[in-house]
C-alpha cells in the first residue's frame, strides 16, 4: 500500500452521509412508494417489539432496572473524563494501546496507519455502527485495503451494495428472497434456496475462509469498563467472537461515551440491552477481554476512542442525555414514523428517533436539520428507552436551535410555516385579535368550502393537508361566540 494509492482513489460517497443526504421528507418519498420495504420494516419491527414486550412484562423489576441503567449512564457521562483516563490506564497496563481521535478523519488516519504497520491488505470486521459513522469501509477500500464484513446482515449489505437501515438489524429492510438473490449472484451459488438455514450455511462457507486467512480484525464496543480496562461486545451470531479471538491484531473503534465505571454495572446494562434490542433474556455471545494475553487471542490490541462531536454534545444540558444511548434500537422498533419510512430516509447510519437527535448533533447542527422535525412527538421512543432518554424533549430543543439559527436568514420570510407562526403569535397575544382572526379566517375559508360544509382542497401549505385529508369548514359560530350569546350577560368575565 502506498500514498499514491490513497490519492488515486476517492472513497465512494454514502447515501447515508448527512452532509449530502436529501432532507427527510424528500428522502422518505421513494420508500413510502415501495410496498416491499414497508412490509419488511413493519413485519420485522412488529416481531422484535412483540418479543421485547413479553420480556419486559415478565421482569417485575423492569422499572427499577431502567432507573438503574439510566443512573449508571448519567453518572458515567457526568464523570466521563475521569473514567476515560481510568480506562486508558487499565487497558494500557494490560497490554492494549489506546489512541484518541477527535474526529472521523483522525480516526480513519489512525486505523490506516495501524494497518500499514501490520502490512495488512485486508481486514475482517465485526458489525460496528461507529465505523459506519466515520465511513471507514469506503476509505479503507480507497486506500487499497480489502474489507470483509462478518456479521450476517453486514455481509448481505456489503455484497448487495446496500446501506444499513437499522442499528441492530442493519438489513431489516430486506427479506430472505432478496438475501437469496444477493448470495446466489455474489457467491455464485445457483439453485440456492431462501430457506434461512441454507442462507446461513452459505454465509458460513463464505466466512470460514476469511476467518482463517485474514489476521487483522476491526470491531466496535458495546461497553468499555473503566475500572478494569475491559472491552465488551455483545452479538448474536458468534462471528464477532471469531474476529475477537482468531486474528493476530484487533483494532477496536469506540465512541468515548461507551464507558461504564465498574464491571458490575454490566449486571444492569446487559439485562436491559438484550431485552430492549432483540427481545432476548440474554444475547447469545457476550465477549469481554482485557488487553492481551500471551499465546491466547490477538497479540496486538488497539482501542481508538472517537470523539467526533460527542464532547460538544456533552457540554449541553438538555442534549447531554443523547449520549446515554446504548444503541438497543428499541426506539426505532416502536417508532410509528420509522415504521413507515425505514432507516434510509434519515440519511444517516443512525436512523429512527435516536438518529433524529444524534445525527444533527454529531454534525454540529450544520447538516441533517430536517431530522429533528421527522417526528410526530408521540413519545413512544421515550417510553421504551431502557436508559430513559427523553427523545421528544431533545427533539424540541433541537427544533428551537434550527429555528433560532434561521432568525437571520431572509429565506424564512418565504416559509409559510415561519410566517404562520409569527402571525399566530401576534394574534394570540390579545383575545380581540384572535376574535378578528377567527372572523377573517372563516370568511377566507368560505371560498374553499363546498356545499357539504367541507374543504377538499386548499392552496399553499394547506395543500399539504388536503392532499390526503378533508377539513371541515369553519363553523358559523365559535365557542366564544356561543358563550357570549348564551351567558355573556350573566357570568362571562370574572
Amino acid at each position: 500500500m502506498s500514498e499514491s494509492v490513497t490519492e488515486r482513489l476517492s472513497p465512494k460517497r454514502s447515501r447515508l452521509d448527512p452532509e449530502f443526504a436529501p432532507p427527510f421528507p424528500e428522502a422518505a418519498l421513494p420508500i413510502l412508494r415501495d410496498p416491499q420495504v414497508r412490509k419488511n420494516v413493519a413485519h420485522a419491527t412488529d416481531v422484535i417489539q412483540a418479543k421485547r414486550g413479553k420480556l419486559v412484562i415478565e421482569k417485575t423489576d423492569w422499572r427499577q432496572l431502567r432507573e438503574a441503567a439510566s443512573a449508571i449512564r448519567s453518572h458515567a457521562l457526568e464523570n466521563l473524563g475521569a473514567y476515560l483516563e481510568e480506562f486508558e490506564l487499565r487497558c494500557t497496563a494490560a497490554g492494549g494501546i489506546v489512541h484518541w481521535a477527535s474526529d472521523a478523519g483522525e480516526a480513519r488516519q489512525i486505523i490506516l496507519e495501524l494497518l500499514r504497520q501490520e502490512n495488512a491488505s485486508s481486514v475482517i470486521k465485526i458489525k460496528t455502527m461507529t465505523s459506519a459513522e466515520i465511513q471507514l469501509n469506503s476509505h479503507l477500500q480507497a486506500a487499497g485495503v480489502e474489507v470483509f464484513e462478518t456479521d450476517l446482515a453486514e455481509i448481505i449489505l456489503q455484497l448487495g451494495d446496500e446501506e444499513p437501515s437499522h442499528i441492530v438489524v442493519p438489513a431489516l429492510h430486506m427479506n430472505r428472497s432478496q438475501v437469496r438473490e444477493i448470495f446466489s449472484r455474489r457467491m455464485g451459488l445457483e439453485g440456492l434456496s431462501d430457506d434461512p438455514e441454507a442462507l446461513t450455511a452459505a454465509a458460513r462457507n463464505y466466512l470460514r475462509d476469511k476467518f482463517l486467512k485474514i489476521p487483522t480484525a476491526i470491531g466496535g464496543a458495546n461497553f468499555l469498563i473503566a475500572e478494569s480496562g475491559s472491552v465488551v461486545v455483545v452479538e448474536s451470531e458468534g462471528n464477532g467472537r471469531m474476529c475477537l479471538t482468531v486474528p493476530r491484531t484487533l483494532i477496536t473503534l469506540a465512541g468515548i461515551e461507551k464507558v461504564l465505571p465498574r464491571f458490575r454495572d454490566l449486571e444492569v446494562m446487559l439485562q436491559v440491552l438484550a431485552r430492549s434490542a432483540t427481545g432476548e433474556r440474554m444475547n447469545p455471545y457476550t465477549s469481554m477481554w482485557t488487553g492481551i494475553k500471551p499465546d491466547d487471542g490477538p497479540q496486538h490490541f488497539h482501542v481508538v476512542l472517537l470523539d467526533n462531536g460527542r464532547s460538544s454534545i456533552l457540554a449541553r444540558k438538555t442534549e447531554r442525555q443523547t449520549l446515554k444511548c446504548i444503541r438497543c434500537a428499541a426506539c426505532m422498533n416502536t417508532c410509528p414514523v420509522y415504521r413507515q419510512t425505514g432507516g434510509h430516509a434519515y440519511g444517516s447510519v443512525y436512523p429512527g428517533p435516536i438518529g433524529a437527535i444524534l445525527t444533527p448533533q454529531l454534525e454540529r447542527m450544520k447538516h441533517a436539520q430536517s431530522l429533528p422535525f421527522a417526528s410526530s412527538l408521540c413519545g413512544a421512543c421515550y417510553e421504551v428507552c431502557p436508559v430513559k432518554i427523553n427523545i421528544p424533549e431533545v427533539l424540541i430543543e433541537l427544533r428551537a436551535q434550527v429555528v433560532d439559527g434561521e432568525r437571520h436568514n431572509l429565506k424564512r420570510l418565504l416559509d409559510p410555516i415561519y410566517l404562520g407562526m409569527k402571525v399566530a403569535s401576534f394574534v394570540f397575544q390579545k383575545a380581540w385579535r384572535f376574535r378578528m382572526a377567527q372572523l377573517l379566517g372563516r370568511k377566507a375559508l368560505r371560498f374553499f368550502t363546498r356545499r357539504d360544509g367541507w374543504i377538499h382542497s386548499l392552496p399553499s401549505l394547506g395543500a399539504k393537508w388536503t392532499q390526503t385529508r378533508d377539513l371541515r369548514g369553519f363553523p358559523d359560530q365559535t365557542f366564544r361566540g356561543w358563550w357570549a350569546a348564551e351567558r355573556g350577560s350573566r357570568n362571562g368575565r370574572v
Partner: protein
Amino acid sequence: MRASLFITCYNDTLFPETGRAVVKLLERLGIELDFRTEQTCCGQMHANTGFRGEAFSLAKRFIQLYGQTELVVIPSSSCVAMIRDQYPGLIEELGSDSLRREFAALLPRIYELSEFLIDQLNLEDVNAYFPHRVTYHASCHGVRSLHLGDRPYRLLSRVRGLTLLTLPNVDRCCGFGGTFSVKNADVSSAMLAAKLQDVVSTDAEYCTALDNSCLMHLGGAMHRQYQGMKVIHLAEILASTDSSLKGGRG
C-alpha cells in the same frame, strides 16, 4: 364547585360543539363554569415547532390569566401535556422566580376532562346515553404524558346503550403531530393510512378521543375516503342524554 374552562384555540375556532358539550356535561353535574374571554392559546404549536420565545409569552399569558382560578378544565390532552411537560422548561429558561411560583401553585389545579371527572369528581357514570358502536383512540399525549390509563374506558363503559369496541394498536400515533402533518405530509399520511385501517377494522360507527387534533386528522381522512364512520370528542358522548342527540363529524 367552580371551574374555569380553557377551551383551547382550535376547539374554540373549529370544534365549538365540543366546548358546548363540556358546558352541558359539567353544568349537568352541578359545576359552576366560568369562561375567561381573554383566553387564546397555550403555545403548544409554537413550542413544538421550535418557536420557543413565542411559546414562552403564550405560557406566561396562560399562567397569569388562570392564576386566580380554583380549577381549570381543559378538553384537550395535548394542551394539558404542553402545560405539564413544557411550561417548566420554558419558565426555567426564560422566566422569573415569581412566574415559577405562580405556575407551581397553578399546576395541581389543572385537569384534563377525564381526570376532572374521575379524579376530582369521583364519577364514572355521568348519566349519558349514546346508543352506538364506539371505538376509543388513545391519543399519544393522553397515554404517555398524562397517563390517563383506563379513565376514558371507565367513563365510556358506563354510558348507556354504548358498545365499546377495542381498537388494535390503540396507542400508536395517528400521524398528526401538529406542524408535522404539513412539514412531513407524506409520512404523516402513511401513518394516518395505517391508523385508519385499524380504526375501520373495528366496524364502529364512531371513533372517539380526548383530543380533537387527532380526530381532525382521522375525521378528515374518513371524510375524504367516504368511510361510513364519524369522529366525536368524548365530551360529546358524555354530554348526550337522549337518542335524539346526533354528534360527530365526517
